[in-house]
Structure formats: structure tokens, C-alpha cells
């Protein structure tokens, strides 16, 4: 029972401050802006079948004349398989100026949410030190780990809330802006030389779940740093650097060793996108492998945070 009370405490300390509402405001503003951009730049797709046919031919001639990179050929073949499948089964692509297409493209806003949650997660422990309230929390008849856990879980709950809001908001804004054109209800992707044809809602669910997994892992990382160093600036800066600069770091490391990168957590993020988008899937890893690597890192981050927090002398 007291666990719920602790969550209530932590969540109320988040939403009773301005930061929470500013973040929410930014999410609404970005989604609106996104819709305006989609409306201005979105092409007319009355004759989508014709343009796809042209695209299919272009892809085929590209494959025929290309004699170099086998990876490139693979990509083109996968792309072409989807294009052909669309024409055969009359499945429209997810144009961003349709309702469904807009919902699909606004899932990219999740990276902004990740920044916000990293900011919250990277400061939720250290701020108690800087406010001088940590000692007031720790002189209660409770295990320290319960207090720390309630902090982590409440940040994740706020993350889920932001993701849900973005999804619902993008749907509503999509309806308002592009209501006439609902868009495709099927989503296609290529995997293991097979075209997969799934409901667009199943696609959304997986997309958001994958975003949530990334968010949880990167937040755990920020949370650990914040607990270790009692400094939110360091925790937030380092986590965001890894979140966005991860590919750069991977590039540098893989120049020395090809095997190390796949064991790093940020190599294995984007579980859904990596394994469903044509051409993006990594050579020798699987979804299961990536999920395991992420799980191990997640447990490691939290374990370090909890062990340090449990033992620490509170003196400031």
C-alpha cells in the first residue's frame, strides 16, 4: 500500500512544478507544427498507383545496372518487393498528409519525449540533494530502495503518459487536419525476404512499445548517473549525448573492433525499427539478442544506482 503512496508523492512532485507543463506544452506545439509541415509539404496522391509503378520500374532498372555493393542491391530488392506488393494488393503507402500517415510520422516526436524524460530522470534524485530534502525522505521508517524505486517508476509513468498523449493528440490533430483522407490501414515491411502485411494499429503499438523500451533504458542510464554523481547536469548531458551521438561513438569503436558495438546498449536500441525497416537491419543480430543486451544493461544501471544509494552517507 505504501508503495502507491510513494509513487503518488513522486508524481505529485513532478506535476506540481512548471517543468512538467512546459514539456507538455512543447509536445502539443510540436505535434501541431508537424501537422502544418505535413499539410504544406504533402504531395497530392490521387494517382498513387501510377507513381508507384514508375517507382517500381526505376528500382528494377537500378538493380539491373548496379554491379557493385551487394548490400545496396539487397536494399533495393527489398524495397521493390514492397512496392510490387502494394500494387498487387492495392495498399496505399502511409502518406504523411493522411490521418494514419500523420500518426505514423508523429511517432518521431518520441525522441523529444526521451529528452524530457532523461531530464526528469536525471534530476529526480540529485534535485532532492540540492533542495536539501533528501535527508527528510531518508529519516522515514522505509527502506531506501523503496524510495529510489518509486522515483524511477514515477519517471517512467510520466514517460508513458507523454507517449500516450502524443499518440492521442496526433490522432486528433490528424483527424482535424486531414480528416477527409484517412489513409492506409495496412502497414508493410520486409523481413527475411518476406513481405509482412500487418494492421497499421498493430504497427503503431509496436512502434510505441519500442520507443518506450528505448526511453526506459536511456532513463535508467540517466538515473544511475544522477544517483552516482548527485549532479543532474552531468547525468542529463551524458545521456542525451549518447542518445543522439550514439552512432558516432559506434562508428569510432567499430573502426577498432567490429564485435564490440553490438554489445553496447545504444547499438541495440530502436528494437522495432531496426528489424522491420527495409535495409536497416543489422547484419548478425536478432531482436532477441538486442532485447537481451538492453535488459542486461537496464538491470546493471539500476543495480549500480540502488547499491550506491543504499550505502551512501547523506551529508550535505
Amino acid at each position, binding site marked *: 500500500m505504501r508503495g502507491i*503512496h510513494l509513487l503518488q508523492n513522486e508524481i505529485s512532485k513532478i506535476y506540481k512544478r512548471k517543468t512538467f507543463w512546459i514539456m507538455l506544452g512543447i509536445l502539443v506545439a510540436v505535434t501541431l507544427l508537424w501537422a502544418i509541415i505535413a499539410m504544406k509539404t504533402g504531395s497530392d496522391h490521387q494517382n498513387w498507383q501510377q507513381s508507384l509503378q514508375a517507382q517500381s520500374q526505376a528500382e528494377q532498372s537500378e538493380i539491373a545496372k548496379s554491379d557493385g555493393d551487394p548490400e545496396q542491391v539487397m536494399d533495393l530488392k527489398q524495397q521493390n518487393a514492397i512496392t510490387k506488393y502494394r500494387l498487387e494488393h492495392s495498399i496505399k503507402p502511409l502518406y504523411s498528409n493522411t490521418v494514419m500517415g500523420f500518426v505514423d510520422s508523429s511517432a518521431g516526436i518520441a525522441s523529444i519525449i526521451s529528452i524530457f524524460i532523461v531530464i526528469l530522470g536525471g534530476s529526480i534524485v540529485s534535485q532532492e540533494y540540492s*533542495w*536539501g530534502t533528501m535527508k527528510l525522505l531518508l529519516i*522515514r*521508517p522505509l527502506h531506501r530502495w523503496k524510495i529510489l524505486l518509486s522515483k524511477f517508476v514515477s519517471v517512467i509513468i510520466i514517460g508513458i503518459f507523454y507517449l500516450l498523449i502524443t499518440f492521442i493528440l496526433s490522432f486528433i490533430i490528424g483527424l482535424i487536419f486531414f480528416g477527409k483522407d484517412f489513409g492506409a490501414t495496412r502497414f508493410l515491411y520486409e523481413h527475411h525476404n518476406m513481405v509482412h502485411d500487418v494492421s497499421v494499429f498493430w504497427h503503431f503499438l509496436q512502434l510505441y512499445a519500442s520507443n518506450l523500451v528505448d526511453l526506459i533504458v536511456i532513463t535508467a542510464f540517466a538515473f544511475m548517473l544522477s544517483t552516482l554523481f548527485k549532479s543532474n547536469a552531468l547525468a542529463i548531458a551524458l545521456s542525451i549525448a549518447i542518445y543522439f551521438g550514439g552512432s558516432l561513438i559506434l562508428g569510432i569503436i567499430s573502426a577498432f573492433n567490429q564485435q564490440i558495438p553490438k554489445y553496447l546498449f545504444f547499438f541495440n536500441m530502436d528494437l522495432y525499427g531496426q528489424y522491420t525497416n527495409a535495409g536497416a537491419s543489422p547484419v548478425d543480430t536478432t531482436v532477441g539478442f538486442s532485447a537481451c543486451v538492453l535488459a542486461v544493461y537496464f538491470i546493471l544501471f539500476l543495480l549500480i544506482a540502488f547499491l550506491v544509494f543504499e550505502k551512501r552517507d547523506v*551529508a550535505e
Partner: protein
Amino acid sequence: MTETVVQVKDLTKRIGQKTLVENITFNIHKGEILGFLGPNGAGKTTTMRMMLGLTSITKGEVIIGGHNIKTEKEHALEHVGGIVENPEMYKFLSGLDNLKHFQRMYKDVPDSRIDEVVEVVKLQDAIKNKVKTYSLGMRQRLGIAQALLHAPDVLILDEPTNGLDPSGIRELRDNLRELAEREGIAIFISSHLLSEIEMICDRVIIIQKGKLTDSQEVRETNTEKMMVAWETDNAQAVLQLLKENFSSAEAQLEKDRVVVGVRKEAIPDINARLVREGIKVYSIEPIRKSLEERFLELTGGNQTK
């Protein structure tokens, strides 16, 4: 027999080569206000942090309400309320929301208890305002309110008078006295200023360079001895009389007064005897000077800062 609420035994804190607190032993009894006096940096805050489970204990024990803070911290902490250093609260929350926040961290503190503690610290009018609008004195009182929520047996207050103006200090003092009397709660209060401690406390322990150097009664109880000065017209006769009839009283001449170490209950007896012998008694005055002298001696007169 006074009931012991807190037992501190051989408490020691070492960080690396440095010994911050060394073999401190003392008890806190039910309903008493115990002062913890010492210059800054003597180890007062470290001791209190160990008592509250905020800092690990190198050696020794702290037992609160029968529970060892080392091994049964969660049980021991049910019996303590505290303020360590400044009474920091969540400034963006109202006083009431702050109290609700801490209420949720206990198993069973009813809502009515919040009203009670707010009344005790007299914050009824401001309790719905945000803490950032509070004066330091109000924050201090809110700090005491949060420490009282779960009706603890003992309050541990670290330098609660820091930064308060004289009227704030007086207010706090009255508040604490009332608490000790009304709720029967023991209060352990630290300060580097003797004058503040002296007014509030029943008993004072003095810490210096991490060691306890003295323990002294401040307020007289019926069973403990105290120093009393008799001003009469014939000091020699008084001395003589005391030696013959009250052999347990240690009497000595100080200027033209007779200073006697006696139990409180003996004072009327001695007085009656003196009057019967025809000695004129001009005044009977309890003396607490010795504490100040000893403190000055210990701290080298360096008691401000």
C-alpha cells in the same frame, strides 16, 4: 525510574584516518529536553546523522525505542522525528501538501493528526500557502510539524535556532517546552550557543573534538542536586548549621553568601531551620553559572562561530 527512549553507546564515526566522533555514550529519557552543546565542527551533526540512520556507524550502537538503528533501521525510525540542519521543505508545495507528502511515508498517520500538528506549531493561517512564501521561523515550525506527524517518542533537532531572530527563538523555545510537557516527547537539541540551550534544556551534554566532555543538569528536578546560594545576615552560622544538620549538603562560603549543593526538596527544610534559628534570610537563588564557566573553559571562550 525514568524511562530511556534512546541509548547511544560508544558511538564512533571514522572517515579514513579522521575520527569525527569518538566513543560517545549517553541516554535520552522520556519527556526530557537534552541539550547537545559544542562548538561548530565538534561532531554534533555527525552524531545526529548517525542517530537518524543518514550516515553509517563505524562503531557503537544507537538504540531507539528498543530497536538498533543499524540492524532495524525501519523500526527504530518509527520512533524518531527530526530536522537535520536547515528545515528544507518542498518550496513549490504548500505547507499542507508538504505534510501530506510526509504523512504518506508512514503506515498509519490519520488526516486528523495533520490538523493537530499544525495547531501545535500554530501555522493554521498559512498552511495552505506555498512554502516559498514562508519566513524562516515559519519554515522552522513546519519542520517541527513534519517531525511530529507520527507522534514519535523523541525529536532530534539539529541547530534549530540557526538564523532565527530573538523573537523566533523565544517562540521556538515555548513551542518545544510545551511539546515536552504536553506530548511527553523527549527532545534532543543541538546548538553551539550555550545561552539558547540553557533556556530550553533540562540537561546538557557537551561535545568537543568528537568526544563527550561533560554532562550537566540545567533545570532542577526534585531528585537531582542543584547549587543554591543563600544570602543571610550570618553566613558563618549558616555554614555551621548545615554541617551539623544537613551533612549531605556540601556548603561553602562564596563572598558573603553560602552556596550549597542540595536536592530541591531539601530547600524548604533548610530554610525553615534557618528561620527557626533566627537567621535572617534575604534571598535564596539557584545558580547555573557553573555550566557557562565550564563551557567557556572547554571551548576557550570561542562560542560565537
